[in-house]
């Protein structure tokens, strides 16, 4: 109870200290001189007062758009101070010397005013990539970058403006498509829905589609944004224009898909200094505040205690890691869950909440101290925020076996050398990547080409078997034909009578084969075939004579050894007739 009262007393002191502090309002420009259409950043700082709504800032010749809010509270030597910063993008639309009048801020029922600011605007030489200086062009685009330099990880609010002449109808194509940047070495935030407004440029009024996003350089060096491109479906009337204010539904429109490019820009990305870098720095760049809350303030050992750590402000929440806990002796600290709540449409300002679950392993009376460091790009210094020591009452017996948990951070000295004890994943693989495909194997062309190998092999096997069978089937026929050709050659060319007669008789025996086509006919005796009734008698007699002459010549050695041409002709004639009748 006493500790509770002490906590309330501290809060009361803090609130009182804040209330006692003097309120101050100031405004500053990132640059005092710039070119036409070259934006600068305007910061309005309100010290020691709670202001939630951004003050209205208007100046002739300047387009001023609100970009984000950040707030910071700190207590030093029991003296509390808070700073709220409203950031604006100021874009000059023409050359000249411009004055931003004193900005009025209402805080605590009182009106405070900043000093007036002066901005020198000179005419830049040349136009942008898409000819924004060309008043004849019906549509063009411009990229607005408010800074010329930034730090790695610092979010730079940027605007992409797409101008369309009055009377032109337009819509992003395809619908929902956002602009695409040409360049590398940066990441962009997700785009919110574009806004539309009416602006005057080069003395003409345009309907303007404005895309806002945040850009963050990831590598030190010169960051070249070549252009940003957005595709629109543009419908422009052709023919004589209707009178202003009169909508003629019959007027024909020419529709086209137009790819509109913005101008380019260069930003110098500076690396975050290493000198003076706190151990608890994890890459957060911007301006932040730290707030903690805990529930319950009284518990037993082993009871879970929820500690909420809220880091709010303006900066890159994507690069922000969990803060470091120190003085964790006697505590088991578990990995916190994280949640980001954006306070503006591009997520430049917001709150990141870390919810820790703590379990006291023994009676303790103080919560762990939360420490968070970030780099402030405005002051170019590291800032370390620490939570105020909070009393807590933990009773009960110590828990047995205090095992180091993944997120546990016991010893403060160890803590400093290891600022973050986040749950980790297994290390990366360094062996060369083997190319692979997401396409299922059965949908890959290569798979089906592979199947051609066994298919061809099977086809060849089948063909070979067929050929072999055909060869076996036709072998006797081929042999007979070959023998017949040789015999006929002998009959025509040989001078030996017995040889020619022998060949002629053999040819007589083989001839019927061709007609009959029956293999067994080959072995049928010649005599049997001669008894065939269809055979002419004179041919039968001639064949019989030929057989008798052959037998007499070969076995009886009767007659001449050489063949006369007359006899050869006769033999050939018999053979020809035999062949014809067979």
């Amino acid at each position: 109870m006493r500790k509770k009262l002490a906590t309330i007393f501290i809060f009361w002191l803090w609130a009182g200290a804040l209330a006692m502090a003097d309120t101050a309002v100031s405004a500053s420009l990132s640059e005092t001189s710039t070119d036409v259409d070259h934006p600068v950043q305007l910061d309005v700082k309100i010290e020691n007062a709670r202001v939630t709504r951004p003050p209205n800032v208007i100046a002739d010749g300047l387009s001023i758009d609100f970009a984000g809010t950040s707030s910071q509270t700190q207590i030093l030597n029991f003296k509390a101070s808070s700073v709220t910063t409203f950031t604006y993008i100021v874009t000059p639309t023409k050359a000249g010397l411009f004055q931003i009048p004193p900005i009025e801020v209402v805080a605590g029922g009182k009106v405070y005013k900043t000093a007036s600011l002066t901005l020198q605007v000179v005419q830049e030489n040349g136009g942008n990539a898409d000819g924004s200086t060309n008043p004849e062009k019906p549509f063009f685009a411009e990229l607005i970058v408010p800074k010329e330099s930034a730090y790695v990880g610092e979010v730079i609010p940027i605007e992409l403006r797409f101008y369309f002449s009055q009377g032109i109808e337009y819509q992003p194509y395809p619908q929902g498509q956002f602009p695409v940047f040409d360049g590398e070495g940066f990441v962009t935030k997700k785009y919110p829905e574009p806004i539309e407004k009416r602006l005057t440029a080069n003395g003409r009024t345009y309907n303007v589609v404005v895309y806002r996003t945040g850009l963050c350089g990831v590598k030190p060096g010169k960051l070249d944004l070549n252009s940003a491109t957005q595709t629109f479906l543009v419908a422009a009337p052709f023919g004589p224009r209707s009178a202003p204010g009169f909508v003629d539904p019959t007027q024909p429109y020419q529709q086209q898909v137009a790819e509109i490019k913005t101008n380019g820009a260069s930003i110098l990305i500076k690396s975050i200094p290493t000198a003076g870098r706190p151990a608890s720095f994890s890459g957060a760049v911007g301006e932040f505040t730290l707030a903690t809350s805990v529930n319950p303030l009284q518990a037993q050992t082993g009871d879970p205690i929820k500690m909420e750590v809220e880091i709010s402000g303006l900066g890159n929440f994507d690069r922000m890691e969990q803060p470091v806990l120190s003085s964790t002796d006697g505590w088991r600290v578990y990995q916190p869950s994280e949640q980001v709540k954006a306070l503006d449409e591009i997520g430049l300002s917001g709150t990141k909440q870390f919810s820790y679950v703590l379990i006291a392993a023994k009676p303790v009376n103080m919560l762990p101290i939360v420490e968070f460091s970030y780099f402030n790009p405005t002051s170019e210094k590291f800032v370390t925020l620490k939570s105020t020591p909070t009393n807590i009452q933990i009773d009960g017996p110590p828990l047995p076996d205090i095992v180091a948990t993944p997120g546990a951070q016991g010893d403060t000295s160890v803590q400093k050398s290891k600022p973050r004890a986040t749950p980790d994943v297994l290390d990366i693989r360094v062996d060369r990547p083997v190319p692979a495909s997401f396409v299922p194997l059965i949908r890959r062309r290569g798979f089906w080409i592979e199947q051609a190998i066994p298919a061809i092999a099977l086809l060849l096997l089948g063909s070979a078997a067929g050929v072999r069978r055909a060869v076996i089937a036709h072998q006797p026929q081929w042999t007979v034909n070959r023998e017949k050709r040789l015999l006929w050659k002998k009959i025509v060319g040989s001078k030996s009578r017995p040889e020619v007669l022998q060949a002629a008789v053999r040819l007589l025996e083989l001839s019927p084969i061709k007609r009959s086509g029956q293999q067994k006919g080959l072995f049928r005796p010649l005599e049997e075939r001669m008894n065939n009734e269809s055979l002419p008698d004179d041919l039968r007699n001639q064949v019989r004579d030929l057989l008798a002459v052959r037998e007499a010549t070969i076995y009886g050695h009767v007659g001449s050894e050489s063949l006369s041409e007359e006899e050869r002709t006769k033999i050939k004639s018999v053979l020809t007739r035999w062949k014809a009748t067979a």
Partner: protein
Amino acid sequence: MICLRSNFRRRRVASLALSAFCIFCSLIFAVPPSFGDSQWDTANKAYRDGKFEEAKVDYLRSVRAGQYSANLFYNLGNAWFKLGDHGRAILNYERALLLDPGLDEAKANLRSVLKLGGTDIRPTFRDVVSDYADVFARVASIAFWISAFALVAAFGRHARLARLGLVVCIVAAFTFLGSAFTLLWIGVGPRDPDLAVVITPSAELKYGPAVSGRSVETLQIGDHVQVISERGDWTFCRASSGSLGWILTQKAERIIPSSGS
């Protein structure tokens, strides 16, 4: 002499056939252009130096170039994890496992990240089988051809060879049918190009494509959804529970990366 000549001819034909086969295989299995070694090393070095943003950018460049590999997606998943984007870490571990279902590191990291997000996704038997769809396709094709060749042998003149061919043909045919039916059962599985993963800690599945729409159910990080159609910033999809509804497109990302994304 004739016999020697015939042997020589046979050998020549065999060597020609072998050469043709080798050329054919080299064309089929030709390895695509390898990764830029320096880019891979640079990305890994950046990761090791704790420059996770740089490492992520370099890994993403390889992904955009279509140089997909299990190792690349695994390392990219680690980079996203280090940057605090657990949703995209899960997505990339799943991609890595799709390309190499045996990548144990990816399995372990996916389990850890899902646990951190409080999601407990237990893969079904079908999911496990689906991971090996390519293996089943390969087995089916090999079994089919073995059965075809064995069938040819079964009609051969040698009795013993014919008997053996018949047995092999029956066994291979059953293997082919089993693998083919498994493939039909699992379909495209996780390689479905319309399958997406919820990449934010939670996503409301709504009845209509509007922020003010009534919620059907709340999806958790790592949950799978089947994309049916897209309209503006909203995606009409089917959750794994079977519910149909609309979620913000930015809250879920397809597992199969679209070319050039």
